[in-house]
């Protein structure tokens, strides 16, 4: 039963997430770049996306925190790590540069790929290449490297 339920709830979550990205305007790179353009004609819409998403997800966290198992009986896998590291700050900054350059972050790029846009497919392919390089570097780098660490928030 659980083996069947897990892919279904996951698919449902993906559909809802994608629908939210489309409805909110986040799946449109120009709208994202207009939000990031404080010095131009600023479109504050995406701040509303954050307000809505954090409002709902925040309530769910209050419930999740009191449980050790999910509604499907699976262990709650909440990140325990809360350390601020150099790789967190630099990795996020690199991500922000890419986000500003193209107007895509991972979710909206996958949604735009689903809408059949070749450039979105190119972005996703390049993103997978970047992630593969990360995995490769992680496997070969020894302990002591500045960017070494095993924390993963998500």
């Amino acid at each position, binding site marked *: 039963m659980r083996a069947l339920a897990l892919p279904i709830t996951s698919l449902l979550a993906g*559909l809802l997430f994608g629908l939210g990205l489309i409805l909110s305007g986040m799946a449109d790179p120009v709208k994202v770049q207009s939000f990031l353009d404080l010095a131009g004609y600023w479109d504050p819409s995406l701040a509303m996306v954050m307000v809505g998403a954090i409002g709902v997800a925040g309530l769910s966290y209050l419930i999740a925190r009191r449980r050790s198992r999910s509604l499907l009986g699976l262990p709650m896998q909440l990140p325990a790590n809360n350390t601020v590291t150099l790789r967190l700050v630099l990795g996020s900054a690199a991500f922000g540069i890419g986000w500003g350059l193209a107007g895509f972050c991972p979710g909206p790029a996958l949604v735009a790929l689903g809408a059949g846009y070749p450039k*979105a497919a190119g972005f996703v392919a390049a993103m997978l290449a970047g992630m593969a390089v990360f995995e490769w570097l992680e496997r070969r780098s020894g302990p002591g490297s500045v960017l070494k660490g095993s924390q993963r928030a998500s």
Partner: protein
Amino acid sequence: MLIDLDHFTPGLSLAGGLLIGAAASVLLLFNGRIAGISGILGGLLSWPRNDRHWRLAFLAGLIGAPLLASLFGLATRPDIQASWGTVLLAGFIVGLGTRYAGGCTSGHGVCGMSRGAVRSLVATLSFMAAGFLTVYVQRHLLGA
């Protein structure tokens, strides 16, 4: 600062945000997992290969969302102004950066901020600052 009232969509964006929050809640409360898209995607590339099915199902939902949206009469028309070269470069550094950061707009920006994690607040401030700066350089210094 000039606010672009012609393109400001507070109602739709808030509604979209509520849906994103609902999606993160489904993943959290039913599956016990964080809705971090870079982590869900990147996890497919890490070893050992386990728990792939729910990741693939979630990603299939994201990719299938435009089809579902079209059934509600909602079109998905991303306006991608960046050149092919920029798109590929941006994609690569987004992939690399989000994995080093352990999250992106969803994992840190929405989920991490929702649980009040300082780490996610720092990550969000970092990528937002970098995004603001990049668009400033791109649009106002280089005039692209």
